[in-house]
């Protein structure tokens, strides 16, 4: 780096700035919109200087949406709570089921194991709309429509294949000799799984969990069809801002800022685990 010329550094800086502006602009714009009223947002030409207001956030948090036509009740905070609950529970269930399954698929080649693993992956291939109609009918018969359990169950279609396939790769990357060495030392297969395989696949499990969380959080179609107002996550709840008296851009922006905050915080927190990677060095090669 010391050998790069001044010109090179300037060009590099310009290029980086352009990239950052390109990717960050929508987020920054939305962040700014969330502190404006609908009138200032819709002003032409748009202006960078405005008088910030917290009205959008207070409206969301109190649940009272002021529109030209009067006061509307919105359940944004409840939606946010639903999102957190549904995503966290779905990922937890997926990890509980997916990690041991991934280990089994990685370490034990039993008859049909590849077929089963691929079938699970193929759940991700089917468009959600394709399965929604039969699923809705089944769920209504089973009494699972509009229940948290039903939603968490459907969310497994999103989370489980993801976790299974990512974590399986990490388990396969652990040299089998390391696990053999622990077994020969006198430990059961379960102790080997817990003390050797799990810690070594830790970064992979964290990455898969985070990714599954984001996918679950961003899900829209399943929740739209299978959940009514009180069970809806923020993605569906945001529809409420399209009111009879116009689209509430300010509130939508504030809602977006609030709803990306948890995933952003989680991603930032988990980043170091993701980057850390497998600390090998115990095995030559």
């Amino acid at each position, binding site marked *: 780096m010391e050998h790069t010329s001044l010109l090179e550094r300037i060009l590099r800086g310009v290029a980086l700035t352009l990239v950052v502006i390109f990717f960050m602009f929508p987020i920054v714009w939305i962040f700014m919109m969330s502190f404006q009223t609908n009138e200032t947002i819709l002003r032409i030409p748009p202006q960078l200087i405005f008088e910030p207001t917290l009205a959008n956030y207070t409206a969301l948090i109190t649940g009272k949406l002021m529109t030209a036509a009067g006061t509307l009740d919105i359940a944004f905070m409840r939606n946010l709570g639903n999102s957190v609950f549904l995503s966290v529970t779905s990922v937890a269930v997926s990890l509980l089921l997916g990690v041991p399954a991934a280990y089994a698929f990685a370490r034990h080649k039993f008859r049909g194991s590849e077929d089963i693993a691929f079938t699970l992956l193929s759940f991700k291939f089917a468009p959600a709309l394709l399965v929604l109609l039969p699923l809705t009918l089944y769920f209504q018969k089973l009494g699972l429509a509009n229940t948290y359990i039903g939603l968490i169950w459907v969310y497994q279609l999103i989370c489980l294949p993801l976790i299974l396939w990512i974590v399986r790769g990490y388990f396969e990357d652990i040299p089998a000799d390391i696990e053999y*060495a622990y077994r*020969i030392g006198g430990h059961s297969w379960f102790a080997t799984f817990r003390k050797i395989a799990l810690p070594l696949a830790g970064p992979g499990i964290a990455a898969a969990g985070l990714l599954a969380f984001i996918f679950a959080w961003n899900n829209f179609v399943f929740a739209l069809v299978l959940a009514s107002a009180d069970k809806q996550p923020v993605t569906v709840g945001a529809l409420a801002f399209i009111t009879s008296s116009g689209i509430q851009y300010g509130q939508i922006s504030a809602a977006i800022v609030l709803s990306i905050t948890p995933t952003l915080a989680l991603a930032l927190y988990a980043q170091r685990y993701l980057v850390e990677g497998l600390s090998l060095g*115990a095995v030559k090669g």
Partner: protein
Amino acid sequence: MASLELRKIVKRYKSQTVLDNLSLTVADGETLVLFGPSGAGKTVLLRLVAGVIDPDEGKIFIGGEDMTDVDAEFRGVGMAFQNFALFPHMSAFDNIATPLEAKRSSPGTIKAGVESVAKLLKIAHVLSHKPRALSNGQKQRTALARALVGSPPLLLLDDPLRNVDAKLRFEMRLELPRLLADRGATVVYVTQDYKEAMALGDRIAVMSQGVIRQLGTPEQIYREPANIEIARLFGDPTINLLDVKPARDSRGIYVGLSNVQVHLAGAYDTAVGRDCVIGLRPEALSFVEESTPGAIPVTVEAETPLNEKIVTLVRTVRGREILVSRPAGTPGRSEGKAHIAVDGKSALLFDHASGDRIGSKNVVALRNGEAA
């Protein structure tokens, strides 16, 4: 203490037979070296004994008990892996301690056990380090310490010196036999280095293609190799191999080398008139005066002084190249014309077609399932 017995072991991977009806017995307290080229099935054999893979056929007895269907954690063996296989997320201390933890020993016992074996292997100062902070030599010793710490009656060492540098390998080759003898454990040691095999083994089993080709003491393997392949693998510089056709005269059986008759000592009656290969160890050849009976004229091509010996490449009148080895400091020729003599007693005769040694008295080439 524990003896080891393998009975008619067969292991296949898909259509490939890795171990073919292999039987082997290792006596209590004995060190057996499994020697052979890569792909011979040595590592698979060791893993079968350890219990991490299962044989398709055959039985495994450890200390007289049938262990064929017993899980690895209950077999009570210690194993060191070629790639060390240390646990990367644990310190060297915790790595070594794992076999003791499995026995539910008290923290005091574990500490004492780990420290004593670490002291023995000279790694006491790096016990707090994670594997990635250890040098290759320290990793290798940590892996060895982990195998030794529980005092297992049966030790399986899978080429533990493979991945360490030459100096350390030389040191460990000297250290290991004493270390293993002190423990009194039965040892199965895998290696591809014939010097290691000779230095460590009470007996050596030479394997190739899933079969034990010869089983014997290092002395036997060297003096009476079962076939050309084994003769080539043992010895540095490698054995000289020359095509000959033995004949008989009044003084016995001889072979013609550069028109000189070299008489062989040994029961080679069956070899007369057949196409054979004679094996001459470089150290069984010596430079002599022209007047010596049986002296073979040669031209010296090149001389390579090694530390303890001098290896000379010579060419016979028929153009065949031969290596002659002599201890450093002894007289010899470094250029020009010379004469060499062959020690007829140490010459080895092999059948040209099969490669098997002819006239074996003590050693019988082992066929499938006949070992031990």
